[in-house]
């Protein structure tokens, strides 16, 4: 029997006597074929849905599957994706963060203001912008985890504070255009640059998604986080600090919203206090679509990624078909409703 790494009580083997010890059999690696693996994936429904969407848009529009359009799609979903990755953690923990759109707008204004008004260097402005997002996130975490305020109400309030602060930063609430007179190689590349044809924001999203996925699946803190989401009482009684993890989720979401805000400012070349209006819906819808639930503590980053791609493709394809943004909002809302209704019917149980 292997015992390395196992801390036992000072060399005793008392428990070995309880049951006849069996040698530890080698761990079975799941060695099934790729099809069995694929059909076992909980996201298979999402993949099919995505395939149908892509097929539909490829057939109905000539441009959907062009490299140019896919690059645009990749760029546009990345901002939602960055925040949705962190939002997954918030929702696994049983909370909601409605303040993200406000944070994005505020960050974009802060960055633009620092660059244009205060003549800060690009790098310092970007860092400051991201920090602003983190600060609001920390405030959210404090209100929810420490004071115990309902997360919807708390983040609704911080949304309002962030949004109106963004307006305050512009003269008479106007947006701050950066103008194209000056060269800002670093700042411009954040939102508009490409590496080997892949948009930089997409790369940032991939990095953040991977990091959060690694955190959730491959670190011990991620394991403890899943325990908190799955059964916060049991986690508490196992000596895991529920508060700390709740706080962390909100702070991280603020940070990611800050990063998103910087990309937003770079892509649109300016700060927009009214920008990102209604984005929290797309973000939350993507997370729910990905199979994360508010009550079960279950969630997957891969699912969130698929959710983000589906919602992004839906908007992109509809735009190509000439359907305006209002109908896109209707579609997104409906997709969210259908996702949660499907989840409910699958698990059964209705009332009335």
């Amino acid at each position, binding site marked *: 029997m292997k015992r390395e790494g196992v801390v036992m009580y000072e060399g005793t083997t008392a*428990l070995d006597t309880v*049951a006849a010890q069996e040698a*530890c059999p080698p761990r079975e690696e799941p060695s099934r074929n790729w099809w069995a693996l694929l059909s076992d994936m909980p996201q298979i429904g999402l993949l099919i849905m995505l395939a149908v969407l892509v097929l539909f848009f490829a057939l109905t529009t000539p441009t959907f599957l062009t490299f140019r359009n896919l690059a645009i799609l990749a760029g546009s979903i990345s901002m939602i994706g960055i925040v949705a990755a962190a939002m997954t953690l918030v929702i696994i923990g049983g909370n909601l963060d409605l303040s993200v759109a406000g944070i994005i707008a505020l960050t974009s204004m802060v960055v633009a203001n620092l660059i244009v008004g205060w003549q800060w260097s690009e790098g310092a402005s970007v860092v400051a912008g991201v920090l602003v997002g983190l600060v609001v996130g920390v405030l959210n975490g404090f209100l929810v985890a420490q004071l115990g305020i309902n997360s919807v109400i708390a983040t609704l309030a911080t949304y309002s504070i962030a949004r109106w602060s963004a307006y305050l930063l512009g003269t008479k609430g106007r947006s701050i255009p950066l103008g194209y007179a000056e060269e800002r190689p670093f700042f411009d590349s954040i939102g508009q640059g490409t590496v080997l044809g892949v948009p930089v924001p997409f790369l940032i999203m991939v990095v953040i998604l991977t990091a959060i996925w690694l955190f959730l699946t491959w670190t011990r803190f*991620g394991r403890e986080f899943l325990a908190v989401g799955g059964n916060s009482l049991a986690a508490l009684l196992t000596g895991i600090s529920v508060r700390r993890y709740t706080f962390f989720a909100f702070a991280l979401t603020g940070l990611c919203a800050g990063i998103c805000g910087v990309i937003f400012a770079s892509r649109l070349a300016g700060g927009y206090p009214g920008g990102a209006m209604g984005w929290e819906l797309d973000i939350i819808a993507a997370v729910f679509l990905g199979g994360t639930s508010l009550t*079960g503590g279950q969630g997957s980053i891969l699912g969130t990624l698929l959710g983000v791609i589906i919602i992004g493709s839906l908007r992109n394809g509809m735009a190509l078909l000439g359907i305006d943004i209002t109908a896109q909002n209707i579609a997104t809302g409906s997709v969210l409703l259908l996702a949660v209704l499907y989840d409910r019917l699958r698990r059964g149980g209705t009332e009335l």
Partner: protein
Amino acid sequence: MGQAERLESSAKLQVTGATQPRLVMEGISKSFPGVQALCAVDFDLLPGEVHALVGQNGAGKTTLVKIVSGAHPADAGRILIEGQEVRFHSPADARRHGIMTVHQDWNLFPDLSVAENIFAGRMPIKASGIIDWDRCYEEAARELRSLNLELDPHTRVGLLRPAQMQMVEIVRCVCANASIMILDEPTAALGPHEIESLFAMIRCVVAGGVSILYISHKLEEIQEIADRVTVLRDGRKVGTVRANEVDRLELIRMMVGREVEAPQKQTVVTPGAEILRANRIGKSKALHDITFSLREGEILGVFGLLGAGQKQLIDVLYGITPADRGEIWVNGNQVRIQSPEMAKRLGFGLVPGDRKREGLVQILSANANLTLANTSLISFAKLLLSPRKEYEQGWHWINSLDIRPKDGGRLVKYFSGGNQQKVVLGKWLQNNCKVLILDHPTQGVDVGAKNEIYSLLEELAKARIAIILVSTELPEILAMSDRILVMRNGTIAAELPRQEATNEKLLAYATGGN
């Protein structure tokens, strides 16, 4: 008070008179998977009678009450009310037949007034359909007065003391024309003075012709309030006796039976150094002056009736609600245990009473649960999870504790109760815990697994782990403990070494008196 006494005597007269029973239960049987909870039990209730139901935990009282109140259907047997056979499909059905249960607190509306709670859902209305507030308060005041209660009907129920809340519930049942009232451990949270006034009220209610099914552990109370007592043991009826014709020891003997079936602890471990000492700790009004010490390799049994303060003691020791008085010493250092996290660092572990809600994360695998208390042991550099380490350590504990099936990758919710309990135990062993607190570790566990858990506890004691075993089950406490603390009303009523402890003694201390 003269009136109450007169009413009381008239109630007794009613009982002695040859009246038809209001409720008859014949040959009631009920089994749950693996357990025969009730076996052909007969029970009857006369008009205007207080009939007490006693028995140890697991004797079948709760099941019988659930059948009467419509929460569970019986497998066999029939229920007659006023001679008519009835069938209940839901608690609402039972209510319609006038059977109402008084629960501790969760049936009241804390933000509404006493009067509104009494009339909740059926407020008095005028002919126009408008609520008649004057009548509401007047009638409530009249009802309260008729039961000798000095309560202002305008008071918000959330501001009342537990005893008063209980009384409001009783008044509500009376006003809803209850003919049979079930009181389940009504005095669990009450002080002596409050119990007095509750009893006065019960006497008034009974005088009005209501029959009461009274469930309690406290035998002296039963002798004070009940007319007849029915004793259950292991799902069978032992007998029904007149409360004033039987003495307490006789009742205890009926409850306990002749032989004790629990396995006796085989080995005696010589306890080591003192690891935990509590000195006069207390918590608001629930816990007072708790003093005890615990040594390595010792099993300390904590016995008490339901609500004697064991829950609060666990909460304080494990930092769930920190103590506000007294000192706790661990390994000779004084500590303030502020959170479970801190308790874990000090070497404590808790096997909670409600495994599903408090012990396990159901959506994770058995291995993940087994290694949850100390995830750094299954990580590289205390950060990255190692599936190989997780698997090997999981396997170690699955093997050592004989958890079946031996598949640690399986979600923990698919294991049986006994095996789940072993997973919770394994979690703390994996964390190398020094003081293990167990809250009713064998509740909802079948007999085989029960014995396995008992022998596990012995092994742990041999491995010099200090164990605090909190239980309301006498045989378990008697069989496993080296020393026994008996709790009553939030204090320690007695501390007995194993040799001196007997069934009767423990029950006597726990029920008060001596």
